[in-house]
Structure formats: structure tokens, C-alpha cells
């Protein structure tokens, strides 16, 4: 049933070239990634987006950025609020996943008003994906 006459319409040829370019750039990109493997350790940076009063205390919404080249799973995050009397309140949360060079968002609940004390955040641990 095969014939030598090519029957591909123009639109398919254009889309086919796009697919070919996609594959070629994909191979180059992946090959480049494989050769220049980035070994930067994961580093988690916090920045506060919003603090708002809620029915039971206060909510601190944070932006969490992984500046490292390694993706993290089950990332435990700790937020510590120290008031003027040096009393501390610790709150925890967990991110299922924090990809490399990417941002995610999380929230911490505190009883005391975070605006009147000192807020500190740190990652407690993670798992390899």
C-alpha cells in the first residue's frame, strides 16, 4: 500500500519542523545539563509575605525559595517567634516538595503577635526526592 508520493500537508511539515527543533533543543539542553551538573547544595531562604490576625492568634505567610541545584522533598520548616521578654514560641510546617531554583509558599500560626517580636525561620530537614 506504500507509495512514493509524499502526502504530508504544509501545516504538518511546519509543525513537524517545530517538533524536530523541540527535540534537538531538548537533547542539547539535557546534554548540557548532564555535562555541567550543578552541585550547589540546597539552601532555603525565607521572606515574609504577610502577617494577619486570625481567629486563634496570627498567621505569617512566607515565601520559601530553594536557591540550590538540588530538589527537596518533605521539607520541615521551623518558625520561631521571640517576644520582648525573650520568651519563644515555635511553629512548624512542612512542604511536600521544594524544587531546585524554585519558590513555594507556606504559613505559620503563632499565638502572640509576630509584629511585636523577632521572627526567625529555618529549615529543619528534608528527604531526597
Amino acid at each position: 500500500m506504500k507509495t512514493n508520493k509524499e502526502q504530508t500537508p504544509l501545516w504538518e511539515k511546519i509543525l513537524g519542523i517545530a517538533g524536530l527543533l523541540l527535540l534537538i533543543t531538548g537533547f542539547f539542553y539535557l546534554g548540557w545539563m548532564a555535562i555541567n551538573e550543578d552541585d550547589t547544595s540546597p539552601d532555603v531562604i525565607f521572606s515574609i509575605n504577610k502577617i494577619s490576625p486570625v481567629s486563634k492568634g496570627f498567621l505569617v505567610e512566607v515565601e520559601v525559595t530553594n536557591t540550590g541545584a538540588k530538589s527537596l522533598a518533605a521539607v520541615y520548616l521551623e518558625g520561631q517567634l521571640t517576644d520582648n521578654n525573650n520568651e519563644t514560641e515555635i511553629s512548624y510546617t512542612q512542604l511536600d516538595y521544594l524544587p531546585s531554583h524554585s519558590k513555594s509558599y507556606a504559613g505559620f500560626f503563632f499565638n502572640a503577635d509576630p509584629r511585636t517580636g523577632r521572627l526567625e525561620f529555618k529549615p529543619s530537614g528534608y528527604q531526597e526526592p
Partner: protein
Amino acid sequence: MTERDDTSPVWVGLGRAIGGSIIFSLPMMMTMEMWWIGFYVDPLRLICLILLSLPLFYRISTMVGFRNSKTIGDNIIDVLVSYAVAFVTTALVLSAVGVINTDTDPGAVYSMLLLQAVPGSLGALLARNIVGSSSKIPEDDGRNYPDDLTILATGALFLAFSLAPTEEIVLLSYRMTAWHSLSLLLLTLLVMHAFALASSKCNSRELKQWTTHWEIFVRITATGYLIAFAIGFFMLWVFESIDDKSFFNTIKGVVVLGFPAGVGAAASRLIL
């Protein structure tokens, strides 16, 4: 075989490709592990996956595809079109459901789309069978053995791709003893053989003969399982599910994935 639909508008073929791509890749797009794997997949393994899938997709394109292609060039273009369509479709769906957003590393998104486009392009190529009204896969009588093997590999790849990234495959293998693995292996072969018999053209008198069963078992069931096992192993390797595992746990993992892959392989002869 149906006549080529020369008068079909452009959007019919494209629509089929998009439809098939979405149907095939939806289970993977909606699986959490598949979003994450894009972020950490080994680039060399992803290249291997794409490179090895292309000859299979070419072969599928000669048998199905979203339009009736004739020449080698037509079929190559069909494969490339299907990959482009799957890439764009996947990007649109993953953006619509919020998996891809501006906070995600563009390189990781690119890897994710290159990976997700593989099952999507398989769907786009099979679109004629899934969403189209006609098939150009020859009926059983007209199929040659390489056609059969391609169909077996297609079914195995589809189900293996859907399940290999999930944690459940590894967890199941940890829960299973050697006896469980052996039982699952036999069950897989039994189910595959049932599908192989159902898709064969043998009459009831022929099926009463052991030689017929033996022939179907060797040609379809056993070969199909070999293909499913190899594809299962390859998919687990691509998704890094068997790295640093003992030989025994690796085999158990492949046997677990070999069940859906094997059933998919055998059932595809009935479906396609």
C-alpha cells in the same frame, strides 16, 4: 483498511492528535510524582527515554497515527508533529491546573514537558484508534509478527509509563516476599495468556489442542512478558526507582510493574 480521507480539514487531524495526547497523558499529568520527577530526572536517562521511544513511535506511526501516512518522510513528520502537539498540550494542561507557574524553574519545567510529552505523543499517534472513527492497523489476519510485537510494546509502555513513577510500585515490592513475586509472575502470565487467546483467531477445536496453546504462549504471552519486563525495568531505571536497590528488590519491583505492563501489552492486541 480505510481510504485516506484527503478531504479532511486540517483541524481534524490536529484535533485527533490533541485529543489522543490529552487522553493518554492525563493520568500522568494528574500524578504528583510526575510533576516532581521533571525536577530531578537524570538528563541522560531522559535522553535515553526519548531516543528509544522514537523508533517505536515511528513503527506505530506506520501502523496507526492520526492520519494515514504513506512514505517514510510522512511517518517521520507524524512522529515529530505528535511530539510537538504533546509538548504544547501538556504545557497548556499543566499551566491550567497550576503545576507550572512563574515560580518554577524554567529549566525544570522544560525537562518536565520533555518527559510528559513522551506518553502524550504516544497518545497523539494512537489518536486514530482512540478518538478517530477508523483504524489503519490491519486486522489480526493481516498483521505480521513485527506488528504484533509493536502492539505488545505499545500497550506495555503505556501502562508502565503510567505506573512506574508512583511510589506504590516500590512500596509493593518491599511488602512482597519471593512467593508473592512468583505468584504475581504466574498470575501475569495467566492473564496475558487469556488476553492472547481472546485476541487470537483460533476456533474452539484448535484451542482444545495443547500445541495451539503452546504456540500462542511462546509467540505472544512469553514474548509479550519479555517485552513488558524489559520496558518495566527500563522505566524504573529512567525514574530512578531501582537505584541503590538490591538485585532481589530490583527484580521484585520489575515483577510488580511487569503485571500492569504485561496486561497492557496483551490487552493492546484486543484494543488496537
